[in-house]
């Protein structure tokens, strides 16, 4: 049994995401918490994982945490500095693409793991405008496994996206394949309350794990749509070792953890 450590929601999210990364994975990372999850995986459970960025840097040293994927900090000590087109080709190409796991965020997610990072409201007359796809749509199209980081809130887990930016399982069943996509898209959702995955057959989200102190019911209350909670089990809490490495090795200055 794991000892009873105290930790913040951000810490448990980071560690849960890190556990999704296997040794040897090529990790497509953004900045902030996704960067931290990638670093945590490398230091805890996946020493041979490789971090790369859509801007074209592969396996950068990252002595300081970058604040953007175009931060000069990612250009130092990389294996190669390539072009934007090369970075996306690495994921579109099945030989390398199938080894990639991506970490994404979004303003909205639906039951099929489709993501919206474009706008709230009608596209022609939006109420809120976000940054847009960036590489999100490309990554969700190409990569077999994507981790979505989300805050678990009703307005974010919605019945219908205001705009479908990045394809998940589309409308379930074979719709992803029928649309012309290879298998992939968001395969796991890591929130401040628990971990959701997607049913192989139906393509629908289900609750896989709930965090200590959180009930499946509480998770349902924080979503606009209903998901299957029958398979849900308690998550193994972060271990002492995981927390220690995360805090002391990955973000000693608490640039992201705070």
């Amino acid at each position, binding site marked *: 049994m794991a000892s009873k450590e105290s930790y913040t929601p951000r810490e448990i999210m980071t560690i849960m995401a890190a556990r999704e990364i296997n040794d040897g994975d090529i990790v497509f990372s953004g900045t902030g918490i996704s960067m931290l999850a990638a670093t945590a995986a490398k230091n805890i459970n996946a020493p041979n994982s490789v971090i790369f960025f859509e801007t074209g840097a592969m396996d950068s040293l990252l002595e300081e945490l970058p604040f953007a994927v175009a931060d000069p900090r990612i250009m130092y000590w990389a294996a190669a500095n390539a072009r*934007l087109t090369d970075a996306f080709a690495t994921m579109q190409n099945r030989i390398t693409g199938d080894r990639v796991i991506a970490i994404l965020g979004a303003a909205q997610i639906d039951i099929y793991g489709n993501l919206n990072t474009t706008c709230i409201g009608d596209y022609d007359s939006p109420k809120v405008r976000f940054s*847009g796809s960036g*590489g999100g749509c490309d990554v969700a199209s190409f990569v077999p496994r994507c981790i979505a980081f989300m805050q678990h809130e009703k307005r974010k887990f919605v019945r219908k996206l205001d705009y479908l930016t990045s394809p998940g399982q589309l409308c379930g069943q074979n719709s992803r394949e029928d649309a012309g996509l290879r298998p992939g898209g968001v395969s796991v959702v890591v929130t401040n309350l628990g971990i959701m995955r997607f049913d192989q057959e139906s393509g629908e989200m289900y609750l896989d794990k709930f965090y200590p102190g959180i009930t499946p019911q509480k998770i349902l209350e924080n979503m606009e749509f209903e998901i299957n909670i029958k398979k849900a089990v308690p998550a193994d809490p972060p271990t002492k070792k995981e927390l220690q490495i995360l805090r002391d090795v990955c973000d000693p200055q608490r640039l992201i953890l705070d």
Partner: protein
Amino acid sequence: MKKTSDKVMPLTAAIEKYVHPGAHISIGGFTLNRNPMAAIYEIIRKKIDNLHLYVHSNGTGLDELIGANAVSKLEIAYGGNGKAAPTCIRFAQAVLKKEILIEDYSNYMMSLRFMAGAMGVPFLPTLSGFGSQILTTWGFSRKMRKNDPRLANEKLAVLDNPFGDFGGAGKVVVVPAINPDITIIHVQKADAMGTCSIKGLTFADIEQAKASRHVIVTCEELVQKEDLRHNPDLNQIPFIHISCVCHVPFGGYPTAVYGYYDYDSSYLRMFANAAKDDKKFKAYQDEYIFGVKDHGQFLEKVGQDRLSAIKADPKTGYAVNMKRS
């Protein structure tokens, strides 16, 4: 006599000559890195408007141009500026207020569109975007597309794979080429003929330059031809693609230029704060853009202290342990 191979001119003359109202323009860099800021501020000072702007992921330059009402149409994948503004503020506002017409693509699609332009083909294929609204929801009307020969008649298209399901794809998305009237990039080193050497990531600058009818290069260092010939492997754009070269040290400021200086996060934060409020934003513009006659005066206003604080460490290429927020 000036040699025909000498393309050096002052920035203000270059903008005058190549950037006209209504021009289709693309700018290099990515979010807070290597944006051609000196050129962008000069465009704003000259009150050039009605630009049709093409970018993939942009931040600092994009939001300054939009904030100055220089842009009427925008094709883009991502408008964000790192930690200071995860979504660009004047950009988002302009979309909400319908001050600009926007067409959304993904980052790979925009990069491929520049690449198609550079290659001289009408389109390039990708497997990205099936099932997404990027394919189905258009920002530009058919009428608008029809009225400008520089625009394709469709936002994008889906084609059957003529080789069956060879390559594991029964169909592909094809995205139309971009050939801007003018592209502006900021690089570390260029010579008087226009050959460019970019240090660190090149983003899509090479493709943007090669796709463009005219190219303005601003550079940190204007070097002798000989300095660039010692290692041609480090020169990404040969001079034949370049229209003119402007020597503008700190021409990327307040964005980062790898090996020379870091982004100025205090400037980016100040900009983001001002951008949230129309009055404050006007005051910001009056002080930092219209209140100076050129980039040199702008840098004087910013002050040597801040420029020193972001100076890049020669080993890592960024400002080690710089205070960031």
